[in-house]
């Protein structure tokens, strides 16, 4: 009994000591106090130095949390147990959150730096007039490939994926909109096509792709491609940047028929307690210098026109991630197709998955 008591006391003391250590570290970081701003962002999606700088500039203390998928983030915000002041969902999540009244409108008069954003990234279908969201990063869907392994194919067109020499060499992201989308694109239809005949054509065309598809995978696609487990992958440009970072033999193209243009935008969830601070933070991130620094750290494309000028030439001039106007003109943003059409897309994708081999 004595020994049990001793051990219990010891463990509890140790726990309190660690707790004291954590709170000491917390207050050395200045996390205590009521004047805080809680940010909920994707993992590793901001330059940590910018947070420190923002804290210094605004006098606010930042609590920074991360999520790994739009769905997880939405659940947490819907649940409402946490007071997130800032979040960064993707465009389809924004329209969903709008429908479910999870967002607060943004007061643009508090964002003088908004003028630096390129107008072509504003007023898009998922959030007309940018009532609820401000562009943060954008990117495309395209093909990552290893020139050494594909024997001279240059992937100018989506049709190159159907090349018989690529037997069992292609990895696809596990997304219905992405896969059906490039099926439609390869037939020169819109990504947001709801014409049943066009969709069937796309499905039949995708069926012919199956011998070339090695696997349909999630986030591990980056690792598999970087390790040269497959020669070709259909991925988002952000993933492509990381893959190329890991293994510079690979390269990335956006096929000429067009592709998807995606956005991650800053929003203020309805759980926000510090709406004033949230606006301050958005304005801070819109500052061209900060946006450039952030884009350089994260590696995604910035919608900030002025920031683009500040970026080094080898980043802003990289046609793979900042495509030329001819290419961007063909890019399309996903429209919210509604629940029924979306589940139809999912069904078609499922059929495609079942037809594998």
């Amino acid at each position, binding site marked *: *009994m004595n020994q049990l008591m001793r051990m*219990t006391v010891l*463990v509890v003391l140790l*726990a309190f000591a660690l707790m004291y250590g*954590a709170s000491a570290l917390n207050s050395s970081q200045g996390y205590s106090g009521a004047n805080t701003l809680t940010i909920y962002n994707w993992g590793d999606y901001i330059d940590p130095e910018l947070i420190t700088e923002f804290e210094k500039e605004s006098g606010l203390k930042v609590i*920074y949390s991360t999520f790994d998928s739009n769905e997880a983030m939405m659940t947490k915000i819907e*649940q409402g147990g946490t007071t997130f002041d800032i979040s960064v969902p993707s465009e389809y999540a924004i329209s969903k959150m709008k429908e479910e009244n999870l967002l607060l409108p943004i007061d643009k008069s508090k964002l003088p730096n908004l003028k630096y954003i390129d107008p072509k990234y504003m007023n898009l279908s998922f959030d007309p007039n940018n009532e609820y969201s401000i562009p943060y990063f954008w990117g495309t869907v395209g093909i990552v490939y290893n020139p050494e392994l594909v024997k001279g194919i240059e992937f100018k067109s989506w049709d190159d994926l159907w090349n018989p020499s690529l037997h069992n060499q292609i990895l696809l992201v596990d997304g219905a909109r992405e896969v059906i989308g490039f099926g439609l694109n390869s037939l020169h239809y819109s990504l947001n096509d709801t014409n049943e005949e066009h969709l069937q054509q796309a499905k039949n065309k995708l069926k012919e792709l199956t011998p070339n598809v090695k696997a349909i995978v999630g986030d591990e696609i980056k690792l598999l491609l970087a390790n040269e487990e497959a020669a070709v992958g259909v991925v988002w440009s952000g993933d492509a940047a*990381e893959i190329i970072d890991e293994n510079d033999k690979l390269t990335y193209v956006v096929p000429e028929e067009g592709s998807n243009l995606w956005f991650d935008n800053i929003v203020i969830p309805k759980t926000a307690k510090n709406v004033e601070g949230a606006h301050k933070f958005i304005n801070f991130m819109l500052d061209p210098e900060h946006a450039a620094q952030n884009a350089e750290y994260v590696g995604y494309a910035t919608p900030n026109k002025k920031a683009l000028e500040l970026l080094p030439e080898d980043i802003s001039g990289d046609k793979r991630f900042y495509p030329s106007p001819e290419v961007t003109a063909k890019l399309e943003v996903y429209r919210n197709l509604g629940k029924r059409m979306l589940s139809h897309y999912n069904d078609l994708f499922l059929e495609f998955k079942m037809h594998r081999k």
Partner: protein
Amino acid sequence: MKRSLKWSNIYLWLVFIILYAPILYLSYYSFNSGGSMHGFEGFTLEWYKEVFADTRLLIILLNTLVIALFASVISTILGVIGAIAIHHVRKRSNQSTLLSLNNVLIVSPDVIIGASFLILFTMIGIKLGFASVLISHIAFSVPIVVIMVLPRLEEMSPTLLDAARDLGATEWDVLTKVMLPFIKSGIFAGFFMALTYSLDDFAVTFFVTGNGFTTLSVEIYSRARQGVSLSINALSTLIFVFTMLLVVGYYFLNRRSRGQVSGRTGSGKEWGLANK
């Protein structure tokens, strides 16, 4: 005979190699100056420096340990009380019902437990953060402690308790001087199981974290989306070494106290054996 012994040795070594190889592989690359797991370029302590420079990560690590220690102590206390209570249930069928209910909680999937807690906390309005994580960790650790302690209680002969009472022990004396020392090893085993369960739990914690409070498993998971940095390798190596030290420390502690027990005459343990 000799031959089969040798084979079993080889088998044992093989199992251990398979169990430890991934951890050693991960630790090995934590010293890689190359920055990725693709090839070893040279020795560096840069990643360890990065771990200690990353205050946010350190706070999360400390949070994880605090939660684990509190959760395992509290759940050990609750679990021991629960086990004794189940042991004292007279009717055999009632006892086995209680035990199966306990086991259902062990085998039910973490996601379900996590989701149910999320719904519960939302309904009764508990803010997500330290308290919610602690409560749910205690909840899934208690059944494990019960299952670790109960076999020791079953081993204990009832005549041992009767003898203690005959010799004038009060119920409190019986509990603290006879019963608890006898089931001590079960209690320790339960404590350490609860500790490891709490340290590595992802699914339940994922649902109930909030307000800037996270644990290591949740943090590493969201970082992994962008590719795991080698500083995570370094941190994992540090935690592995820490656990090793803990186990070795426990081993020596155990050996010392066992030596004391066998040195004394008439300790509870020998009585229990003699009565069998």
